[in-house]
């Protein structure tokens, strides 16, 4: 298969009706199952449909972006499993925040979805297909990562850096094509830093650098975008900017799964919450149902109170 054929882009975020999107997604996923050779191109309409549907219909698509079923994982020589019996559904088009104390298995879960680690028990489905049935390249067309602290050694420009996100669609010997530039440019525009395209990444502020990383991952046109604590090392203003961009991506209908230590950041933009503690899922579901004082107290082991702040939960730790 040539690189040209496998290339695809994010659809424009046109609002589509729930029913048509859901049926398109299921039809396309059924078609993609037997055609492993034509994998990425066959799956393209499914992704297009599901991504576009999400703005209007979170968690309603027929195929969840990620489906974890009783997943277990242990690091060698570890006393207890890093993940145990994790069952969770990451809805297409939703913004799902994973909350939990240090060592709760958040990062392990992200690495598992990325394919860096393999689940030892249970199964991981990505767009309805077992994760293991994708090749490395196919998986990287579906799962994009914004790592916690991306460090660039060489002074690539923001555009050059964003173009690296097209790697999953390029053959080993291929150079980025003009269409890749167009996709990269769209990604830059969707996070609002197209104006910085020709600046070296190394000269950006922490927040802008994080946004460049988000753009690079978006250029992958992933079915699900993973962000590993995207705001943890940023100051208040930069963190706010990144969260605003994430809210914008949510409005564009993109599927996001992110880890955070800040329940209020999660409350600000997440549609769904996954609470974890010691490798187990405490609770999962829509924001308002899960982000309660009782559950957060159970998760973090400190008394937590949740008050209503203009429709959004505000999390306070008791003195």
């Amino acid at each position, binding site marked *: 298969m040539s690189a040209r054929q496998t290339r695809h882009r994010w659809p424009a975020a046109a609002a589509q009706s729930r029913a048509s999107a859901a049926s398109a997604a299921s039809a396309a996923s059924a078609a993609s199952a037997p055609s492993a050779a034509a994998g990425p191109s066959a799956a393209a309409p499914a992704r297009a449909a599901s991504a576009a549907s999400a703005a209007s219909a979170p968690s309603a698509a027929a195929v969840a972006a990620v489906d974890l079923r009783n997943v277990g994982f242990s690091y060698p020589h570890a006393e207890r499993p890093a993940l145990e019996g994790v069952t969770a559904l990451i809805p297409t088009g939703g913004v799902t925040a994973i909350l939990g104390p240090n060592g709760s298995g958040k990062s392990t879960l992200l690495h598992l979805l990325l394919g*860096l680690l393999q689940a030892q028990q249970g199964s991981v489905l990505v767009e309805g297909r077992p994760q293991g049935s994708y090749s490395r390249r196919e998986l990287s067309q579906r*799962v994009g990562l914004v*790592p916690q602290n*991306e460090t660039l050694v*060489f002074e690539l*420009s923001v555009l050059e850096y964003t173009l690296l996100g097209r790697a999953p669609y390029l053959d080993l010997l291929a150079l980025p094509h003009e269409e890749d*530039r167009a996709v990269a440019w769209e990604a830059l525009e969707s996070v609002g830093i197209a104006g910085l395209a020709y600046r070296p990444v*190394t000269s950006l502020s922490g927040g802008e650098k994080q946004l460049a990383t988000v753009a690079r991952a978006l250029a992958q046109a992933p079915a699900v975008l993973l962000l590993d604590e995207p705001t943890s090392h940023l100051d208040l203003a930069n963190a706010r900017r990144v969260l605003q961009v994430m809210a914008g991506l949510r409005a564009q209908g993109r599927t996001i799964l992110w880890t955070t230590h800040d329940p209020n950041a999660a409350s600000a933009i997440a549609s769904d919450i996954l609470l974890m503690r010691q490798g187990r899922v405490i609770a999962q579901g829509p924001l308002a149902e899960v982000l309660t004082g009782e559950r957060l107290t159970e998760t973090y082991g400190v008394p937590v109170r949740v008050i209503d702040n203009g429709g959004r939960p505000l999390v306070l730790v008791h003195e």
Partner: protein
Amino acid sequence: MTERRPATEIVSRQTQQGRRRLALLAVALGCLLLLSFFLGRYPGPWWTPPSALVEDPLAQRLMLHLRLPRLLAAVLVGMVLAASGTCFQMIFRNPLVDSGFLGVSAGASFGASLGIVALGGAPVTIQLSAAIFGILGLLSSYLLSVRIRYGDWVLRLVLAGIAVSALYSSGTSLLKYAADPLRQLPEITFWMMGGLWNITWPHVLQILPVVLPALVVILLLRWRLNLLSLRDETAFSLGVSAGRERLVLLLAAVLATAAVVSKTGLIGWVGLIVPHIARRWVGSDAQRALPAAMLLGAFFTLLCDDIARTALSGELPLGILTSLLGAGIFMLLMLRDPSGMRR
């Protein structure tokens, strides 16, 4: 979402400027090559007139059988050292490494010294032994790095390279100590200074089968170098088989370096300094920085060799010149740019 820009507009600026500068470098290299062909100490001290090529049979033989292969060798050496320097710097995410790392150069020196002292000192033996020990240098660095239980892959490999280099250097010192001070020691010293004075067509033709494919592989994979300069986790998330691609590129870089070094001796600083200047000139994206480094490396080495063979009536060792100029430029760059070298 906004209208999609016409792709040509996005290509603009950086890329076009980079292309212009690449073309400029290529033209400059071509001009220098032509100039160098007529530069030399026969019949006069600086210049061989083009007419001599027709009229003077001795000048003709000298230019076609000695000067031309030497010029080509200089171009190849510069290209190989700069290309592998760029590879090493990007793969190890460290702008301050070159083939001196990984035990390649140290291994090759040891191999050459061993050839001179213990294996009879025939040129073929020296070259083969240098190449083998250069590769052994990389191999032992790699094997050691796999077993070190400290730091990530990149750091481990660099640490292993330092240790292996030190090992080979002490071996070379031992060989120098044991060498016959009248016969062998000068030869070792001369080899370690590096030069192109004995290059003839057979030499060039011998290294071409290794050097050309290696350069082609590196050139074809040049955009991937950007991906390999990312952290492992990120490269993985982009579907890059980092380990395999790194191995292919490193192997190409080391084999080409060992082949070149086995004919010319050690020529320092080209692999370190040239990639920096290239990045300053066309930007850090390896898609342009790598070809620019190769052209610039060829230009730099050719210029140094021109000086080496014409400045004095005797021959100046090329390695000394490249080190002198390279280290000078390096200091200049650091003084002029307080934020350090261009990465």
